[in-house]
């Protein structure tokens, strides 16, 4: 009779001890994670605040809050080079948006062929496509440059945009093939029975059902093209053609060492489009990475 209540108290004790341990663990984990986030994001926030500081205050303050706010650096940076940053932003937008259109169109067509159409050599070409995923771009770099030079395309945006219309970024084909394979085949079989051509199946059934993957591809294409430095570096030499990334690089070469404020202001501006994607399409980006293992 006396044993039973005792056992009960022991059980509740270990339970509450367990709960306490769990609580402590959770608090410690949160403290760890919060401090890690602060350390990681501090440089970004610091650059943001530096871009709003008066010039003389940039280097002697570790705090994030400027003593007085000023937009001077933005005006200085915007016109800090021979050509205004406005031109660079327009160029970057044009290249990125054309790349998105080309990439989504060409890659979804190729992916449709690989996922749904039957033709001789399909497996072979699919394997070839997968091989190109692993290829370091340096191997094709020089002949491509020679090709574009002979076509008279160097110092235009064509070498940066045309390859996207030829589905050169095979990664997105792979991404879309995976998605298309998940769409029930009954849907397009029924359409074919009703006399739909492959083109109509692609246009009326596959694409409307694939908006998540198309959006993911579009966003990543935009971000990667926006960030691309190497392509513009070798193909664009006239400053009026420059992208934002090239503009920033010129800034570091010339005035950047004297005008850190302007440099930071333009750096912050260059990150804004990417940050907006992050803000509004975070779910899509993270799911895209989780399901396909994207590199960044």
């Amino acid at each position, binding site marked *: 009779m006396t044993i039973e209540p005792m056992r009960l108290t022991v059980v509740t004790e270990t339970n509450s001890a367990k709960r306490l341990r769990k609580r402590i663990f959770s608090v410690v984990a*949160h403290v760890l*994670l919060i401090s890690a*986030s602060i350390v990681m994001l501090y*440089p*970004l926030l610091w650059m943001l605040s530096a871009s709003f500081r008066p010039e003389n205050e940039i280097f002697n303050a*570790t705090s994030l809050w400027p003593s007085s706010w000023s937009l001077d650096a933005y005006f200085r940076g915007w016109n800090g080079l021979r050509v205004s940053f406005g031109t660079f932003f327009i160029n970057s937008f044009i290249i990125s948006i054309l790349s998105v259109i080309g990439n989504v*169109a060409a890659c979804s*067509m*190729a992916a449709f*062929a*690989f996922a749904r*159409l*039957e*033709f*001789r050599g*399909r497996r072979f070409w699919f394997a*070839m*496509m997968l091989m190109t995923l*692993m290829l*370091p*771009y*340096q191997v*094709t*770099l*020089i*002949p491509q440059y020679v090709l574009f*030079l002979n076509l008279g395309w160097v110092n235009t945006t064509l070498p940066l945009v045309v*390859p996207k219309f*030829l*589905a*050169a970024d095979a990664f997105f*084909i792979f991404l879309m093939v995976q998605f298309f394979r998940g769409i029930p085949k009954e849907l*397009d*079989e029924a359409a*074919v029975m009703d006399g739909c051509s492959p083109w109509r199946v*692609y246009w009326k059934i596959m694409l409307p059902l694939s908006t998540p993957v198309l959006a993911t591809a579009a966003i990543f294409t935009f*971000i990667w093209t926006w*960030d691309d*430095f190497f392509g513009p*570096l*070798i193909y664009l030499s006239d400053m009026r053609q420059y992208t934002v*990334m090239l503009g*920033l*690089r010129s800034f570091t*070469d010339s005035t950047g060492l004297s005008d850190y404020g302007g*440099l*930071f202001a*333009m*750096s912050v501006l*260059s990150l804004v489009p*990417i940050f907006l994607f*992050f803000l509004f399409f*975070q779910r899509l*980006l*993270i799911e895209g*990475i989780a*399901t396909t*293992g994207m*590199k*960044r």
Partner: protein
Amino acid sequence: MTARSLATGASSGERAASPSVWSRIWQNDAPGYLFLLPWFIGFLGLTIGPILTSLYLSFTHFDLLTAPRWAGADNYVRMFTNDAKFFASMRVTVFFVIFSVPLKLAFALAVALLLNRGMRGLPLYRALFYLPSLLGASVAIAILWRQIFAGDGLVNQVLALFGIQGPSWISNPNTSLWTLIFLSIWQFGSPMIIFLAGLRQIPQDMYEAASLDGAGRWRQFWKITLPLLTPVVFFNAIIQTIEAFKSFTPAFIISGGTGNPINSTLFYTLYLYQEAFGYFRMGYASALAWVLLAIVGLFTAFSFLTSKYWVHYDD
């Protein structure tokens, strides 16, 4: 008619044979190849053609202005016998890969494990840790990094609060490469997301069973989590290693395109760029590209061959 060109599972002999071979090819194969056409042009013109051309160019001297001159194996011989910069760039790149990839993955795994234990606010943390990955490839971040680790930069200002006089990390050849490794580790977000997705695949009842058998957390990690996660580790390691070999922008921006101080940040890709577009030695740069392809190819083949000894696959 085009029904048979779709992969409906109908075998090709099901209907009556079409009148001519050509019309059958047109019906069966044409739609596929038409949809593939853009990719096909790109594949031939921008991938296969250039690969073969680049192999040829690697055996020539070529300066873009005059026609390539056949050089036999000269480029390769020079590279391995008489080019200190080649070896310097190789050393820098291998050092970068060996330290940045494991550290980045270890960090990504550690944070993923912590987040996976039902932490409240997981979506927020995940997003915050992912942000550097997303922004990191930008020139703007490389510029920021150059400032942070400069002699009068943010890091030294923080150290000064503790009375420590830090060196100029960027212009010191002993530390300059570490700033780049640090930048790479800072971007651990996307492998972390992949680890999180992998961790969620591990059935929870395995832990319950292990727990009943008296296995502690530490043992559970080594006996359950890690073995079941090896396919994801393998995947992340391959992707990150290839990316690390290809890394270019940060080293270019931070060293102003030189790879200095004393070649300590001369990434292989940076050296290749200098040879090709600084000195216009296109033949030599092509040879460098082929050596890079060989290294990445060997590494990948080696990883896949050894993977069966340590990567756990469900049967």
